């Protein structure tokens, strides 16, 4: 069923609110998305009818909770074209990436090996590798940018060698909006025998993501960025690597047998899920994926492309605005990061806020990229399926007003 996108906004209670006397124009979707009524209702329903600890009880509630939780595992698997035992639930992308780095990376890396990451990584896919490199004696290599804000694939090819053990990069840059060629980069990495870890935080929810065609070894994303609750994320790993990967947290439910001196762990994915999991949040994530599917990919992609293109165009027309990242086109996802000459992003964001326009100003947890771009901060407008052309017009008008206010 394809829903009319113009009414999608009504599915999100928070969007009907006024901020500083203006309708809320929420353009910080790359930081976190808003939640549709159906997700909020799923959480409420869970707590009002089914709440119990999972995998533990033989009573009715426990069985219901367990079944729903495990159904979402299957749903996530289907959503990204994987198998259920390749889906591990975590707290979020950050936890997923840390577990991959610590539970798998630290195991396969030898002193002198190379880890390749890129200068456009979010700190969550950068600091863990930096730390694992320090710990194992591996070297961290960076893929640089081309002039138009894409990864320099020629340089990437040069970096790849027999010493490359791990290649970790983001599917979509949270600053530049660049969509990286995961399939090609994975293929090249596999040719030298390296494992590929993809940070999907900014990809999932914007377009379909298919593990079988991407063929990467690990993939991570967050529930709260795909219209789901905070507190839940996904770690995908190919079956054979999850088998090899060590659990990073230990506790109840992930064990077969605990004796005083030794413990026998369950198989994946259970061996990674220690203690009480974010049960309600997993169920909320299921409702979010259902919502996305109800709207439909082509509707979402068409709308986000239209809105992004309009933002790109309207901002570009404002004298003094500089936009970062690739031209509007197939390599740009649903965000536009920019600066207005003479106005610090923080000041700009404050002006926008008085107009009800919520954007993010700062380094976007990507300080090495900021250094590469030669700026200390930027302003980012990022879009979700509920954003409309009117939101973008409000954004552009507010930027123009700021320009006047600061007389630049």
């Amino acid at each position: 069923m394809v829903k009319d996108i113009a009414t999608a906004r009504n599915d999100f209670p928070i969007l009907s609110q006024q901020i500083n006397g203006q309708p809320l124009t929420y353009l910080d979707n790359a930081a976190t998305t808003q939640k549709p009524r159906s997700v909020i209702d799923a959480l409420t329903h869970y707590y009002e009818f089914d709440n119990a600890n999972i995998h533990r009880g033989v009573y009715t509630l426990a069985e219901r909770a367990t079944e729903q939780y495990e159904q979402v595992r299957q749903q996530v698997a289907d959503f990204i074209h994987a198998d259920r035992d390749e889906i591990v639930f975590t707290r979020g992308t950050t936890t997923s990436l840390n577990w991959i780095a610590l539970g798998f990376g630290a195991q396969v890396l030898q002193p002198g090996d190379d880890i390749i990451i890129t200068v456009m990584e979010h700190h969550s896919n950068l600091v863990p590798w930096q730390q694992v490199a320090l710990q194992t004696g591996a070297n961290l290599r960076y893929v640089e940018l081309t002039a138009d804000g894409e990864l320099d694939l020629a340089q990437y090819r040069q970096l790849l060698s027999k010493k490359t053990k791990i290649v970790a990069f983001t599917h979509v840059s949270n600053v530049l909006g660049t969509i990286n060629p995961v399939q090609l980069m994975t293929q090249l990495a596999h040719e030298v025998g390296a494992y590929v870890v993809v940070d999907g935080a900014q990809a999932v929810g914007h377009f379909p993501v298919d593990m079988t065609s991407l063929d990467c070894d690990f993939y991570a994303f967050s529930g709260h960025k795909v219209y789901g609750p905070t507190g839940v994320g996904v770690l995908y790993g190919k079956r054979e690597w999850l088998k090899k990967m060590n659990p990073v947290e230990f506790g109840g439910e992930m064990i077969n047998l605990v004796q005083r001196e030794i413990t026998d762990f369950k198989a994946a994915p259970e061996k990674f899920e220690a203690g009480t999991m974010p049960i309600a949040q997993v169920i909320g994530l299921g409702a979010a994926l259902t919502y996305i599917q109800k709207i439909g990919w082509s509707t979402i992609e068409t709308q986000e492309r239209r809105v992004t293109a309009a933002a790109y165009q309207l901002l570009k027309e404002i004298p003094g605005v500089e936009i970062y990242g690739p031209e509007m086109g197939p390599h740009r996802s649903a965000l536009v990061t920019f600066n207005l000459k003479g106005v610090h992003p923080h000041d700009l964001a404050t002006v926008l806020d008085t107009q009800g326009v919520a954007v993010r100003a700062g380094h976007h947890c990507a300080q090495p990229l900021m250094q590469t771009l030669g700026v200390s901060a930027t302003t980012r407008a990022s879009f979700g399926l509920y954003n409309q052309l009117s939101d973008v017009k409000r954004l552009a008008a507010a930027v123009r007003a700021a320009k006047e206010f600061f007389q630049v």
Partner: protein
Amino acid sequence: MNLGHLSDLYRQLILDHAQHPHHRGQLATANQTVNLNNPTCGDVIELSVELKNDRVADIAFNGDGCSISQASASMMTDLVKGQPIAQVRAEIATFLEMLMNDPEVEGADELGDAAILATVVKFPARIKCATLAWKALEQALGEAQQHE
């Protein structure tokens, strides 16, 4: 578009300091330097201070930041240059109290131009911008003390 509310934050005095900050640069004579950043937005301040005879004999700052943080640094350097360290410490305390707890704190009127920054309290997200320079100075004086 009505931006009237904004003039509370961006008073002319603040904008003037931000556009033409006083005491920008580095001190050749500095005996204390502190780099501090506001991790939320990436604002950075490099403060260099010359302490002599229990006074802030000279002071300068560099770095990159929004108009509030630049103006605040500029106003602060105006205020403290030449003052006895003990007095500066008291002023830092007053300023931080003004922004973090009580915009009408006693002694605010002795903060010079910086007194106007009390208005930032109405924009909680910007308080860290206004306090950055002052925290850097607090740290510089703290370190100086440790070296004594």
